[in-house]
């Protein structure tokens, strides 16, 4: 087989399906696909006959029944009278919330630790090596439980804030740190445009998006001037104005107020509560995944040839600027692909929420709903569908980003 000869001429014979390299791979793929289809069909038949034997049937109508249970962290309206589908939605939003928060903080931790690990300062680089080795070599579930246990046992209960003999007090009278979570002042509107709170915030976000494009336009304009005249106009005050003024005006018109948490009855009420389970999960996922990202970042930086740094140094750039302008942009090309899989890991690992009673999709749809209705197969199928979709979306999004920073050969 060392010498490639021209494919034999002549009519097609059945035996060529196996003997001819042009067709063999197709044949094998067809066989595999057939076997796979048979297995799936068999599994499906097995499930349906067994369910029938037990008098059960597959169906998703239970999703429309009232769920009957309460959830402690709700980003949308939900009561025990809402449907199981609604409970699943609450769970999805909670999963997305913790996943997004953890992706952001893990990236920050990871980049800082990865860059500092290459520091010339012995202590700093060893500290970072220590962080990476400790955190990525202990399972994330253990971290979640450790952080949660420390929180519930070390932080004061809301009771400790009560009465004259209170042993704890609020920070600046604005923040309360308790073993049930952290309470912070929450913004509200005294003169809202829309009845629904969400719509008002959407308006604020829309204005911010407008500011973003405004700031970009100023940047483009400045570059144009710079190219024409060689002088870049000072734009920082314009950009600041474009960012701040419209939001400030909108917020003033809508009457921004701050709702400050206060101890009422058993708990703090008012403001925003960041629950203990969310904090434990968020923090654990961040430091754990951050350790992996740190290694990716380090690998990425080390992949940029030393000549680049030296050349930049020879041009007179300061070390900070060398890192930001020369090394990191090139390192990103190496860092992004493994970063995608870290983001996927965070999203999937967030299902460990159940260990601390955080109401993510696994805890609502895959936990209480599954258990109270007994619809195990349906619930697990929906769960798989959700995680699959979420993961594919993250991959797709990050791949687009990766393509945009890829080395463009001109």
């Amino acid at each position, binding site marked *: 087989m060392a010498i490639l000869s021209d494919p034999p001429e002549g009519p097609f014979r059945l035996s060529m399906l196996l003997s001819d390299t042009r067709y063999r791979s197709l044949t094998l793929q067809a*066989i595999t696909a057939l*076997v796979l289809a*048979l297995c799936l069909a*068999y599994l499906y038949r*097995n499930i349906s*006959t*067994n369910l029938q*034997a*037990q*008098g*059960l049937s597959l169906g998703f109508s239970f999703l429309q029944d009232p769920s*009957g*249970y*309460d*959830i*402690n962290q709700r980003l949308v309206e939900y*009561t*025990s*009278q809402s449907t199981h589908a609604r409970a699943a939605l609450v769970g999805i939003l909670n999963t997305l919330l913790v996943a997004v928060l953890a992706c952001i903080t893990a990236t920050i931790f990871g980049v800082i630790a990865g860059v500092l690990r290459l520091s010339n300062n012995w202590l700093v680089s060893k500290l970072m090596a220590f962080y990476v080795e400790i955190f990525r070599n202990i399972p994330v579930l253990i971290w979640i439980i450790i952080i949660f246990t420390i929180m*519930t*046992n070390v932080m004061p*209960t809301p*009771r400790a804030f009560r009465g004259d003999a209170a042993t704890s007090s609020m920070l600046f009278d604005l923040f309360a740190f308790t*073993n*049930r979570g952290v309470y912070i002042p929450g913004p509200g509107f005294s003169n809202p445009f829309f009845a629904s709170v969400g719509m008002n915030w959407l308006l604020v976000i829309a204005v911010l998006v407008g500011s973003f494009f405004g700031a970009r336009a100023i940047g483009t304009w400045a570059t144009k001037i710079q190219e024409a005249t060689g002088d870049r106009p000072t734009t920082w005050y314009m950009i600041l104005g474009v960012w701040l003024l419209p939001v400030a005006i909108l917020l003033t018109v809508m009457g921004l107020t701050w709702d400050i948490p206060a101890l*009422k*009855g*058993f*708990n703090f*009420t008012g403001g925003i509560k960041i629950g*203990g389970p969310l904090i434990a999960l968020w923090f654990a996922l961040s430091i754990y995944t951050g350790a992996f990202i740190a290694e990716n970042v380090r690998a990425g930086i080390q992949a940029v040839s030393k000549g680049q740094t030296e050349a930049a140094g020879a041009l007179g750039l300061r070390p900070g600027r060398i890192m930001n302008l020369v090394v990191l942009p090139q390192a990103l090309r190496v860092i992004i692909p493994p970063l995608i899989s870290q983001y996927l890991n965070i999203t999937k690992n967030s299902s460990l929420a*159940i260990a601390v*009673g955080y*109401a993510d999709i696994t*805890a609502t749809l895959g*936990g*209480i709903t599954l*258990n*109270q*209705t*007994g619809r*195990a197969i349906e619930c697990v199928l929906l769960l798989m569908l959700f995680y699959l979709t979420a993961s594919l979306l993250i991959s797709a999004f990050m791949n687009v980003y990766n393509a945009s920073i890829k080395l463009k050969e001109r």
Partner: protein
Amino acid sequence: MKKSVILGALTVAGLSAGAAAAGTLDDVKARGKLNCGVTTGLVGFAAPDANGEWKGFDVTMCRAVAAAVLGDATAVEFVPTTGKTRFTALASGEIDMLARNTTWTFSRDVDLKFEFVGVNYYDGQGFMVPKELGVSSAKDLDGATVCIQTGTTTELNLADFFRSNNISYEPVPIETNAEAQQQYLAGACDVYTTDASGLAATRATFENPGDHTVLPEIVSKEPLGPLVRHGDNEWGDIVRWTLNALVTAEELGVTSANMAEMKASTNNPEIARLLGTEGTLGEMLGLDADWAARALAVEGNYAEVFEKNIGEATPIGLARGLNAQWTDGGLLYSPPFR
């Protein structure tokens, strides 16, 4: 070669497909062991003692069935289950019966397809709070943080109770009783709610049980009992009549102390049928004549089992209350042995 691998895999899968169906009695006999689902640990009901041996009210139910069927009260494999895993464990055939403080409800019976063989403890849901909170009624719990075990009826009753009283609360869902206890004692929740018997059992293990009160409200009916899968009525009958044997023995005054004597000399025909000296009840169950006598020999009749594990002489200190015989104003009423 490919073909044989696939065929092999298909046969294996095909074999396992049919395994969960009827014939539990034969399975248990062939295995020589009863797989019994219990709690992960609730002192008095089911918990391993200092020697690692399972002890408790529900555990005795498992042992009685093992004694009746296999003639050996120790031939039991105890499978700890949580509120969430128990039904899957039973439905999949991992356990032969479940005795885990499980409430008999319509949907578990009809929709989840289980057969509750009876009630071994009539209970209701209660609330426990630290005394220092100064709460005297469950209606004062507006805004409280409540620890609950997930996958239970407790979870649903709680939502109903607070909604119908128009007060709010924040649930803290927890897998096991042990974790709930930890969180409650750490003050991560103000209230712990579960079956009143479970509260008493949990409180008994506290360092200072006196610092905690159980509120007077009982907000639900929780008839707790052993259950098996739908569709294997012979097996269901065995578990049902083992429970009934314990209850009937108390009613008829048969105890572990006088059983041997009664067996030899009783002239009460129902006692004779129960202990197998008259009639063929054991045979009808597919067991031998001594089946009930062996079940009774484990820890005695219902009253003895109750007093030894959760009764007033134990730290748990539960009164018989609803769980007294019907002749004493309680709800225990076994169908006759004839």
